[in-house]
């Protein structure tokens, strides 16, 4: 359950950004979570709801955008979205691949209430 410490990090970033914008409330938070981020989205939401009490986001909700795993074959230049974790190019068999997306654990955006 490392989701709780990730949510603690999230709140640190959220509170910093909200203060910069003089926000009174954070009403909505969007996270990008890669397929290979190694977290369970449901647990992130549970942790968020536990953590938000008595914070600026006490009435906020967390939306999770799952990001598929996308790789590029450096040899034949094919780009594929994978649902398994087999890091071998299905077209040419090369293992010289680059991960383009799927590792994300990003705070994408939030909705604030300001005066």
């Amino acid at each position, binding site marked *: 359950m490392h989701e709780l410490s*990730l949510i603690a990090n999230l709140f640190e*970033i959220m509170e910093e950004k909200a203060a910069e914008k003089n926000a009174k409330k954070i009403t909505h938070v969007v996270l990008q979570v890669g397929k*290979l981020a190694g977290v369970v989205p449901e647990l992130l939401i549970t942790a968020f709801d536990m953590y938000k009490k008595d914070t600026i986001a006490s009435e906020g909700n967390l939306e999770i955008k799952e990001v598929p795993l996308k790789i590029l074959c450096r040899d034949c230049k094919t780009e594929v979205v994978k649902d398994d*974790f*087999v890091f071998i190019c299905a077209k040419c068999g090369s293992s010289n691949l680059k991960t383009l997306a799927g590792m994300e654990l990003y705070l994408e955006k939030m*909705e*604030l209430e*300001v005066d």
Partner: protein
Amino acid sequence: MPHNKTKMKTKEVMVLEDLLGSNKKIADQIRKKLTAKGILTINLLSSPGSGKTTLLESLSEILTPEYKMAVIEGDIETERDADRIRAKGIPAWQITTGGACHLEAKMIGKLFPKIPADLDFLFIENVGNLVCPASFDLGENIRCVLLSIPEGDDKPKKYPKAFITSHCLVISKTDLAPVLPFNIEKAKKEALEINPNLKLLTTSAQSGAGIKELAEYFIESLQKIRRTNA
């Protein structure tokens, strides 16, 4: 207040910040400082009981006294693993996470002043857990995942992140292979499918098989960072 609320404006702000950014930043500083001192740092991770502490005990017999090593032990509770390492005459520091299932870079950062500058190897034994530690860079040069024969050969595909983010896979407790249905070749093949760059090694702390090869891999890696420093 509903009255107040009507005066509020809603505003959307784009942020795009990594939740692991602060951990990564500390980890990069640790790696830079330790590498500059010529210390090779190894993060050992595995499920509980795969044989991390036993492997460190065996490695200490080969690496010392020629090389100087120290160990950071991560556990949820107790000093037991650190005591086992100290009994071998190796300096060890225990981090008890008090419930947390993984180590984070800032915990290593706190110990930083205690780490002697003349070390060759700094081993970090992570909390026994094949999932959570995989997300946290500790500033290591080498991440080494252990998979022991009793756990079964299907683990690389089931817990891909630990295997994808590691440099080295050690299949441990190979003395048990004859009595358990673990297919070492299958485990190796599947691990390479998810991470073609993995260095593969097999060890048995019981018989001593493969420990020397693992030590040699670490020694070569140490020489590599020192050559790069020079």
